[in-house]
């Protein structure tokens, strides 16, 4: 038995309770049919996806750590791959130490959010850009008009 960790992504066309039910079924399959044990499980809930997958912009995430017989892992992964109610999953050997809780992850994510870094960039670069761009802009415009006349 080895300790593994899987992050599941369930599609958002399922209701949250239905997605949780699928997650529970997977856990049941691990403990009952594969004689594994669930070490840690956490429901992350609905999260926006970083990019569109199919027609989905949001999804339900869930993290699971479990001990599992290594020789049956291929079979289990194939099962998950076929399962239409699992959008994506990533199985890895569980990292050492306590798993980070989702609340902590979100706190760290907010401490360095996109808006903050974007704000810093703008504050630094904007004044310079406006001065520099003023003269080339007019030349660019005249170039564009020249091209359209040629066409």
């Amino acid at each position, binding site marked *: 038995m080895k300790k593994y960790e899987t992050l599941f*992504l369930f599609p958002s066309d399922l209701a949250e309770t239905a997605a949780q039910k699928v997650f529970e079924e997977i856990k049941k399959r691990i403990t009952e049919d594969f004689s594994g044990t669930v070490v840690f499980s956490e429901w992350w809930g609905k999260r926006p996806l*970083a990019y569109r997958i199919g027609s989905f912009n949001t999804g339900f995430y869930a993290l699971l750590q479990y001990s599992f017989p290594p020789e049956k892992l291929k079979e289990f992964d194939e099962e998950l791959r076929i399962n239409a109610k699992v959008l994506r999953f*990533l199985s890895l050997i569980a*990292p*050492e130490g306590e798993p980070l809780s989702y609340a902590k992850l979100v706190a760290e994510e907010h401490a*360095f959010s996109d808006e903050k870094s974007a704000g810093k960039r703008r504050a630094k670069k904007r004044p310079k850009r406006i001065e520099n761009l003023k003269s080339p802009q007019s030349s660019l415009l005249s170039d564009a008009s020249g091209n359209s006349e040629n066409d």
Partner: protein
Amino acid sequence: MTSTTPKTSMAKVNKKCPFCANGEKSVDYKNIGILKQYGITFFSKIKPRKYTGICLSHQKRMATAIKQARFMALVPFVK
């Protein structure tokens, strides 16, 4: 003759690896805050370790962590 001082640039300033400083062995792909802080730019490209000061072994772990986070849609491929 005046002696010429060597040029110093921000890129060559010695920074210490933040993971070695904390005594962390691995980089967790689920910790998006850490990835955004040290690993990726605003446009979600992998930062060269020349600018971040991450050591080579941690940079390799960081690169795989970023790719895993991209696959799970935690971090965009491009923005």
